[in-house]
């Protein structure tokens, strides 16, 4: 299942990276070394703090203090480095020495056996697929009729493109696209379905299965059919009906829309904001208004497909830096600025660096303080996609800026969605008044796309008011949701780690990726979870690399401690069954010590 189009992005940018790779210019070794040294030293000091913090039992308290201290901003980043090091068990060796090149922390100490079997099973799947196709085309040509030229028409889906879909995705179809019949809250009702012919046809029995929902992005638990937000939505629908049936720039703006936009700006901490009726469109239709020909977009390697689409639509040059590697970003920036535009070497009109606040497949935060520092140094414009982080991160739920104590005005364009924490739909762009005014007339979403519907606006404004504590009757509820979410995320991730699972992602992130590695384990895991009444999301290639299939668990404030304990118990059993606890021995050794 593709959710993060790393692959697409790579394919797209391959030409660019080739160019970048082929020129072996070495820029700024001394500057970078200096940075390294400083970073290592500070890492060394913060290490002690971190390790003690995690060992203590009063995790939740430690977290809230950590989150409240101003230097938390730098801790969490150093913590990532320190986690990696601790895993390697070479902690002391690095103290005072230069760090090696930042490797992706998740793949550090995967047992060789796991890696090899993962590759093997993947190769086996592909081999079987090819063999099946070969004999199939020989003996059952009518089955492959859609892949051939017929009647002078080229096949709609080419042979190669569909290999994955037909042989792998189809087999695992049961893990995906499962319809639900209720609110996607802490619990969700799945439609029961059955297939007698290997997923070629699927029958819905009509039954509903009530399961614990560890899949939906309902971070703050605002996806509800009852309660304040739902009541407000009904009230607004009574007063303002459902939709506008026009675009934002023509006659689609209502008082409610404008009030909500003002509220979003206040919430995010910027001068103004613009609301778009769909999350994907917020990126894909607004980036082209900001940059165009003669501009450069520097994008994180794991950026979401909507950002990639927006970048491509803008017509500017796109370059990619290694995921979350600010050193690589700086190198790329220096090289890009001195080289200028390709061929003509004219200076770039604008450079837009596009990153995400919280990466949805990795559960990692972007290194915002460092990027903001670079922004001051190099003068590029910064676009932060807070699709997952807004509402879910930071002490006040104001996203990644809040988490790192960065002034939101240091970021030129703040984008976010309402689909996740707010339990609504659509997205926003926030920034300076000049930016938003320009976008109101020049963004494709504002001029050509339908404006936001009334119930969705009502949901956004009421949930946002609750988070901000502006709703007098429910003044404390929003804050409670935030605290519950942070507590749940930390508890669940730590418990999974204690069980011996390999869990990646940053401390306190509500997205918890649990590594499966083996692509075939995805189906097994999803099935076992469904049996035990838990809904989870499993992802693999092309969303991730071939051998890093994973389960993505989204924790919500709607989950109680009992819910989480139940899930942990069941996932632990599944882990034993599927041999997923690859760090089990290490945990045991640690306990013995």
């Amino acid at each position: 299942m593709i959710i993060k189009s790393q692959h697409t992005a790579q394919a797209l940018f391959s030409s660019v990276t080739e160019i970048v790779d082929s020129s072996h210019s070495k820029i700024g070794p001394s500057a970078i070394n200096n940075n390294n040294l400083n970073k290592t030293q500070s890492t060394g000091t913060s290490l002690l703090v971190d390790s003690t913090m995690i060992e203590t039992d009063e995790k939740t308290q430690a977290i809230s203090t950590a989150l409240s201290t101003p230097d938390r901003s730098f801790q969490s980043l150093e913590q990532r480095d320190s986690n990696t090091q601790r895993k390697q068990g070479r902690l002391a060796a690095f103290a005072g020495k230069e760090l090696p090149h930042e490797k992706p922390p998740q793949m550090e100490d995967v047992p060789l056996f796991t890696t090899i079997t993962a590759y093997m099973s993947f190769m086996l799947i592909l081999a079987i697929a090819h063999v099946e196709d070969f004999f199939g085309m020989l003996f059952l040509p009518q089955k492959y009729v859609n892949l051939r030229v017929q009647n002078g028409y080229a096949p709609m889906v080419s042979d190669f493109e569909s290999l994955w879909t037909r042989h792998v995705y189809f087999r695992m179809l049961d893990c995906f696209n499962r319809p639900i019949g209720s609110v996607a809250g802490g619990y969700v009702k799945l439609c029961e379905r059955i297939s007698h012919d290997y997923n070629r046809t699927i029958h819905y029995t009509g039954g509903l299965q009530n399961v614990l929902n560890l899949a939906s992005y309902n971070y703050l638990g605002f996806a509800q059919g009852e309660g304040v937000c739902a009541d407000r939505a009904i009230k607004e629908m009574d007063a303002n009906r459902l939709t506008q049936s026009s675009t934002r720039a023509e006659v689609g703006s209502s008082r409610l829309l404008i009030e909500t936009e003002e509220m979003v700006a206040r919430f995010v901490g910027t001068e103004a904001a613009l609301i778009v009726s769909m999350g994907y469109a917020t990126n894909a239709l607004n980036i082209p208004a900001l940059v165009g020909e003669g501009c450069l977009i520097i994008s994180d390697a794991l950026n979401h497909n909507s950002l990639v689409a927006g970048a491509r639509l803008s017509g500017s040059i796109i370059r990619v830096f290694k995921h979350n590697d600010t050193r690589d970003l700086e190198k790329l920036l220096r090289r890009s600025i001195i080289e200028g535009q390709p061929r003509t070497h004219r200076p770039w009109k604008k450079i837009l660096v596009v990153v995400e606040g919280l990466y949805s497949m990795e559960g990692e935060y972007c290194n915002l303080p460092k990027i903001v520092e670079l922004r001051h140094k190099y003068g590029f414009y910064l676009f932060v996609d807070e699709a997952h982080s807004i509402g879910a991160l930071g002490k006040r739920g104001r996203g990644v800026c809040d988490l790192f104590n960065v002034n939101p005005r240091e970021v030129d364009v703040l984008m976010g969605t309402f689909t996740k924490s707010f339990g609504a739909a659509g997205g926003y762009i926030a920034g300076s008044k000049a930016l938003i005014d320009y976008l109101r007339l020049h963004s494709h979403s504002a001029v050509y796309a339908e404006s936001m519907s009334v119930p969705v606006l009502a949901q956004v404004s009421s949930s946002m008011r609750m988070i901000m504590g502006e709703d007098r009757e429910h003044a404390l509820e929003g804050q409670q949701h935030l605290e519950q979410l942070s507590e749940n995320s930390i508890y669940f991730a730590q418990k999974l780690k204690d069980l011996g699972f390999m869990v990646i992602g940053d401390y306190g992130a509500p997205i918890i990726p649990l590594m499966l590695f083996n692509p075939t384990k995805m189906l097994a895991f999803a099935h076992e979870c469904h049996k035990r009444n838990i809904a989870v999301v499993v992802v693999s290639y092309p969303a991730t690399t071939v051998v890093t299939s994973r389960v993505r668990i989204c924790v919500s404030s709607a989950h109680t401690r009992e819910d989480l304990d139940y899930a942990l118990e069941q996932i632990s059993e599944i882990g034993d069954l599927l041999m997923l606890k690859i760090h089990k021995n290490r945990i045991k050794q640690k306990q013995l010590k």
Partner: protein
Amino acid sequence: METVASTASFVSSASPVAGETDESSHGFLRTAWDFSFRMVLRYIKNSYKDDPFRTFLEVCLIGFIVWYMAKPKYNIGTNKVELSEKEIDELVEEWRPEPLVPALTEFERETLDKAIMIDGPNGTKVRLASGSNNKPVLNFASYNFLGFVDSPELGKHAVESLRKYGVGTCGPPGFYGTLDVHMELEKQIAAFIGHSAAILYSQAFTTTLSVIPCFSKRSDIIVADEGVNFAVQQAIFLSRSKVYWYKHNDMADLERILKDVNKQLVGRRGKNALPRKFIVTEGLFQNTGDISPLVELVELKHRYKFRIILDESFSFGVLGKRGAGLTDHFNIDPHEIDLLIGALCFAIGASGGFCCADKDLVEHQRLSGAGYCFSASLPGILTIAAADAIHALEADPDSYLDNLRDNAVLLRTLLKRIPGLQIDGAADSPLIHIRLAPDALVRMKRSGGAWTKTDIDRVLTDVAEEAQKDGVLLTRAMYVDDHERILPNSSIRICVSSAHTRKEVEKCAHAVKSAVSRITSKKR
């Protein structure tokens, strides 16, 4: 790898002393590799004995190869300049980016200040927050063709569906974001249009933006109408296919291009001998109000083996006896349209869009349609609202469509009588663009000089404002001027609704007439 290793051993043993006698040091090698190594060794020894000069030459040659390989590489054609750190810092310091967004022009600022804000519900009659008196005005600006936006049909199940599904779905369709009502609506739309299957997207613009690049790839060919709306233009750009544009609704020109394309493909060999070929056009053109000649299109499609991608965003619910769009209008089997794109946010009054196609193609989109796969699904309330609206239309199409057609024809005839205006579009299209006729423009500009686009826009804005004083809400058709491939001439776009009464339509025509005469008589 092996050759390198053997070369290395060859070199080392080539020197007369190297391990000549020391057989015991290789004693642990019991492999075939060892055997071959000794064979080589023996060969070298013998050749050295027989012809030392040849050995010398060979050593020289190997030395040359090693030197050649180790030599720093050079690239042809790169003029790379090595810069010092200080120079780079200076260059970085010197680089001044343009501002993120340019400042608004005076006219843009005015447009923004005068932007219409609706107070209360949208519909055929609306209250404006900006207006001085709070009298409701007649809305001829929203795409509310069937009047669903203010009909009770749309909100019939709103409360129930909110209680059952909440507002947002909190996930993309692949990951527990598909509601049972989504699947029902997909079936309902497919059945209503008469196609095999349908897939729901959560925004109309993104539907087009996803469907076209999902099937038309870099090596494929698109032949598109010049007058298509912006979403289609963007989708074609995103697909990176080879694109040919034919003159708006000109079938002769289309045929010429199709022939041409096929001629170019003759004799092409290899993997990509036959690319996918598409004709892309719109059912009811948003920018002109014209209707595509589908009968000819289908004929050309068969003759030249192209597929049709048809954007029915504005024709779905509007054209045809049942309101099922262009295929219904021309009585053509919808299966002839390979990819039929529609919108639920205009005539239907809900939100989102859909694509009708064969089952395989629909299933393919569930993984490859970016706007489907990567974004949250359509909220449950809006899904049910769309389903209710389509049900209502299905149950009694005449009550909606007859009225709509009558109103459209009436308004068009009334508007055509107004001097100084140019009215385009098909006779029964409810989308009517009012443009200033060239002779009227000449008459108005007494001071002489050319009309700029901003001048015309300003006149049209003034006309819309005048009409608003008479109680009719109109809007200038908005475009992102510098991104449109061919910017349509400035116009006021009027959308007729079936919910308008005959009197209201007449009032609209009258308001336009008096506004135009007042504005055009002004001295400029």
